């Protein structure tokens, strides 16, 4: 049932993004020293000039020496109102993921291979909590982890809001605490879908919905003489995580 809803959600998202603007053909952006931003279709270029057809239909000839930054058609997808997304180059990301009994902060760097793929790696701080009720007490475990991972994205569309599939595979270095003195490290797996929003600047926002899985093995202890027992566990945490983040490109 849940998968049916997930499919429905994807379909809905797809319908949602159908309404969004398509990338302009040969779209390019030039940021000039005087603060001017020129946006339009790149007609031609050589070592000394770029010819850009702007929205009014006029053609601008731009000397590269007066630009602070140039986004060429092979680097970006350009949409209306000067918004763009990257299709080549490096980007850095920061993301916050939340779910009941879970949170994570991830930092990552990725290489955008083309308009379809990007891959990279990063690290993060993850927390998974769980409780085991016994007749004498509720044993709470908060597992803090430093996580190292590789990740990748596959973009389904090139619209202004781009839908993508994302995956992550990593290693979790769980931190031992007073309640969790024995804790072996584990792995983390995550896969989901996301939506990246184009913008007029290098900062882009994205949201994701993903299935997160991580494991931990260890012992929950109690210092109380009446506690029924310490509890050893070998648990897989399955979470649906909602993530919000920003990415910064060239």
């Amino acid at each position, binding site marked *: 049932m849940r998968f049916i809803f997930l499919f429905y959600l994807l379909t809905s998202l797809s319908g949602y993004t159908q309404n969004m603007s398509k990338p302009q053909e040969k779209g390019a952006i030039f940021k000039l020293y005087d603060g001017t931003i020129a946006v339009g279709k790149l007609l031609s270029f050589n070592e000394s000039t770029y010819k850009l057809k702007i929205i009014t239909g006029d053609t601008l000839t731009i000397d590269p020496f007066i630009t602070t930054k140039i986004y060429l058609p092979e680097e970006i997808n350009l949409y209306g109102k000067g918004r763009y997304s990257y299709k080549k180059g490096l980007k850095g990301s920061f993301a916050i993921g939340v779910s*009941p009994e879970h949170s994570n902060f991830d930092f990552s760097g990725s290489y955008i291979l083309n308009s379809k793929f990007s891959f990279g790696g990063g690290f993060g701080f993850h927390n998974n909590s769980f409780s085991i009720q016994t*007749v004498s*007490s509720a044993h709470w475990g908060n597992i803090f982890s430093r996580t190292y991972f590789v990740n990748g994205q596959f973009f389904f569309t090139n619209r202004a809001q781009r839908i993508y599939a994302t995956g992550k595979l990593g290693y979790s270095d769980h931190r031992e605490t007073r309640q969790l003195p024995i804790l072996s490290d584990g792995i983390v797996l995550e896969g989901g879908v996301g939506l990246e929003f184009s913008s007029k600047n290098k900062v882009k926002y994205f949201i994701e*919905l993903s299935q997160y899985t991580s494991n931990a093995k260890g012992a929950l*202890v109690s210092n109380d003489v009446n506690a*029924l027992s310490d509890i050893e*566990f070998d648990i897989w945490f399955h979470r649906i995580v909602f993530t919000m983040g920003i990415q910064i490109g060239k």
Partner: protein
Amino acid sequence: MKNHLISSFSLFFGILFIFSGCVKNKGTITMTYNKATAVYGDIDSLRNIPLKGETRNIENTGKIFVGENFLLIGEKDQGIHIFDNSNTNAPISVGFINLPYTEEFYVEGDILYAESHYDFLKINIADIYNPKLISRVEYAFGAPIENAEGEVLLGFTYEVTTENFRLNSPEALALSESSYLYYNYMNELIPISSVPSSFTGSGNDIKGTLNKIAVNNNFIYVIGNSTIYTFRDDISTLTYIGENEIGNEMETIYYENNKLFIGTRFSMIVASISNPSNPTYISEYNHPTSCDPVYPNGNYAYVTLRTADFSGCAGDVNTLVVLDISNVNNPTEIDQITMDSPYGMALIGDKLFVGEGVNGIKILDATNPATLNLLSSNTSVLAYDVLAHPTLNNVILTTGDLGLQQYLIDYSDYSMQLISTINY
């Protein structure tokens, strides 16, 4: 625009739905618990075992009763040790009362009431060295449970076991309600609600006086997990009257002023026995989930609530609560005194002794029973339950890991001097 709205709603409700139930933990846990394996046999042969037995070592302590000149110390599932305590400096083991599969007993005058497997017994202990059975109510706590061979479940053998369970398995769920798992002859888990209460003992593991049995004139009340069993004592005959569902997870019962005060894990229940055959619920004082002996004192009642980080009792309080029960329809909390880890209580004269486990013992002035004032805190004593001596006001008994200890109290400075220890 319409499509846009539909898509937005789909997105919103889709996320809500997916979030609603996709937090799962799967795996295994390994816990140490008390594994109770059913023992079957001929119940008549058990009933014919003579009460009087030989002295033996204490191995698995249960209920403790302090008499004027003797001590009774329960041996779980076996019976009761008899100690001559006429000299509190040197108690001596002098006998044993055979009560197979006993968990609880209560002494009123020369009469001992005891559970023994399915049965409830009345025993004359006027001559403590020669106990005599007066009456037995057979199958008082439930119908006999039989195995495939027609043998009757007599009780359980207990073994501390460390075992691996799946999360959310029936065993893991059962251990959230009990520290025991009961298995039948096919090694199938028996729901604790199906085990006669006389087999399961009290809800906590504190050794001492916390009672499951209360006596009012010729009526006796015995609590199970959620049931009060009522018996009538007609001198020579004990008769089962009936049973009432009053609360859940009942741990201790206390009689005072025609009322029953019942401590559960969540509350103190006041029950009326104006019709002694039929205890009825009057009111309830709810408190955080915790271990909570109740000690009525006239128009007031003291309740200790004990928890701690990862404590043996769930919750997050360690207090002594003073309740005004002058209006039994509405018990009112009038004070809370912060404690360290309060267990049992005993009132000697106008002094309330509160066992604090590893944190010692506290003595409070209860001259005004509504306003308790701390007089002394002695951390050199290990005291889970505390028991008053019936005649010696300057002697107090404590239970702890070292055994049952007797202390001499000097009321001038509230110092306590150890005078004897019964190791167990």
